[in-house]
């Protein structure tokens, strides 16, 4: 990785400096930036709760938004084409996905003469990323790095404080990442507060930590064509692409919740039987 190309000593010096800084002031970074980020609004997602499941239509629309808008800057390199037709996901037909995969060029090789070559994608290939590496991405984006989005819905969150977090355990609220994504995507175009210094090349977005994000507002009304009558608005695009990214981050979410329910029923019955067995066994002993 990039650290290895640098001399070891400078890396260790850098790490040590960072560690000292971190160990002493664990929150300096956000505190120094332009004030705390706004708290995302809590949305009502179809996949939340014990019986949550994705809305296929929404995932398919979300994929369309990703492909037509986000894919020019962000990869989803952990997702394979075949995943798009598997249970619990957008569930496109095999024909649709074969066609889709063949529209991508995937590097393969080496061939007999030792050359790498490009060929059309197959079901088993993962999505090729728009940039070959982080440096290329930064070079194209004016120094900023558009992260891979495969896991972004689980890699972002916002703090809710101690008591609300305890409540989240009971209410199973865990869509913090999705709420954050949606908030950022629709959070552009707000009036810049008087005390915030405009940063060249950055865009004001109060939901992004620090308030200034390198990503230009990616969405606008009518940008992506929807054929199922869903309104073609920024808000809807954002919800759909967020749902899609929630699925890429946790492709087996539906299977997990479904299995969970069965396991719960089993455990409750088993516990009940054991309870009465225990009562019977102990009934002849004072304890």
């Amino acid at each position, binding site marked *: 990785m990039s650290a290895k190309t640098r001399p070891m000593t400078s890396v260790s010096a850098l790490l040590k400096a960072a560690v000292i800084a971190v160990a002493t*002031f664990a929150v300096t970074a956000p505190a120094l930036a332009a004030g705390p980020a706004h708290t995302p609004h809590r949305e009502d997602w179809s996949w939340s709760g014990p019986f949550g499941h994705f809305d296929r239509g929404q995932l398919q629309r979300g994929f369309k938004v990703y492909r037509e808008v986000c894919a020019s800057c962000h990869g989803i390199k952990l997702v394979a084409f075949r995943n798009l037709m598997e249970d619990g996901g957008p569930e496109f037909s095999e024909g649709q996905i074969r066609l889709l995969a063949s529209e991508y060029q995937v590097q393969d090789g080496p061939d007999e003469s030792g050359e790498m070559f490009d060929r059309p994608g197959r079901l088993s290939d993962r999505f090729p990323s728009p940039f070959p590496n982080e440096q290329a991405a930064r070079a194209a984006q004016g120094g900023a790095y558009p992260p891979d989005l495969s896991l972004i819905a689980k890699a972002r969150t916002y703090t809710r404080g101690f008591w609300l977090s305890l409540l989240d355990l009971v209410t199973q609220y865990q869509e913090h990442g999705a709420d954050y994504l949606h908030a950022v995507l629709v959070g552009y175009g707000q009036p810049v507060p008087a005390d915030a210094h405009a940063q060249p090349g950055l865009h004001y977005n109060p939901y992004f930590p620090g308030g200034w994000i390198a990503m230009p507002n990616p969405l606008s009304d009518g940008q992506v064509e929807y054929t199922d009558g869903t309104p073609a608005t920024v808000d809807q695009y954002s919800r759909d692409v967020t749902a899609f990214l929630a699925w890429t981050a946790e492709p087996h979410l539906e299977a997990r919740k479904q299995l969970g329910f069965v396991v719960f029923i089993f455990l409750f019955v088993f516990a009940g039987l*054991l309870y009465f067995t225990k009562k019977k066994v102990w009934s002849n002993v004072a304890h």
Partner: protein
Amino acid sequence: MSGHSTFDPKNPALKWFEARLPILGLAHSSFVAYPTPKNLNYWWTFGAILSMMLGVQIITGIVLVMHYTPHVDMAFNSVEHIMRDVNYGWLIRYMHANGASMFFIAVYVHIFRGVYYGSYKDPREVLWILGVVIFLLMMATGFMGYVLPWGQMSLWGAIVITNLFSAIPFVGEAVTTWLWGGFAVDNPTLNRFFSLHYLLPFMIAGVVGLHVWALHVSGQNNPTGVEVKSSSDTVPFTPYATVKDAFGMVCFLIFFAWFLFYVPNYLGHADNYIPANPLSTPAHIVPEWYFLPFYAILRAIPDKLGGVIAMFAAIVVLFFLPWLDTSKVRSARYRPLYRQFFWVLLAVCLGLGYIGAMPPEGWYIVIGRLLTAYYFLHFLVILPLLGFIEKPLPLPASITEAVLAKNGAAKPAVGA
């Protein structure tokens, strides 16, 4: 405890085998005939729960290793490969990750159970010390396991913790370089952590064996803290304890399943879904929740070496607990003052955990220091003095008497 085994197999093959290796007799006297006090409550099922969780961790861990790649360039993606491509890989991985937390929840309950009922006292000192050894090994295992998925928290947690060793005077630098296998946390570090993470659980299993052995020599303590006097105080392990433990384990599994199936990332950290990057420091480096009290103690001392010493001392002091507690009475039930200090200690430990999760600034620093001071005060001053100051309540003559008093209409024997 019961001397010679009462196991007497009828089957000739078993008889033959038993004469050569009496392992079935050992199992029989340990888990079937073993006399267990009849007044144990559900806090006593946590030993069985812990054994179950160790089994869960070892089994899921071995399956994970079949698909995991311990290399800085591949570890993160190999864990995602488990989550996405391996059949039920998500289940195995979430079981292992949440199982570690459940293991610690169970061990904390188990430890505080022992502290409340005075289970560390004569004749159970060695049993207690073996328990603290298990706890230390678990902490090492959990810490190194968290490094394996090689996300941002894996890397930066490893950097912060291994850097603590550089506080050792004179040899600190050399020790850290030796631990890292280089000049930074990098591939050699990941590889050795992986190796040790695989090894330590089996060492834990070994120490658990000694722990149970010691237990079966001294016998179990019980909520009265009064030793077993006669066979009327006990019931055979099977079926009595077996069925009660089984019920406790299934209830614990229900609790586990809530996390596993519905909030599997609740106890984790979002940053660990970002691949490790040595050039980008996360805004907030927090260890896993089960280290937070110790992390708070570490940060309470303004000096790095002092902080490290305090953190280790917080665990080392537990080894001396059997001698720091000067009271002759075991159970807090009959120790009116100690009982109150017990709840204060529990609150202080929870408070330390809370402080450990907060940024070290403002009042958090002050409160963290006060709680740290109290933690040591409890063990080093309050406990030794309490044994002399406190006037314990009258003890029941035996477990049977306590049980009769509890079940009878009046409660004359306990007298309080």
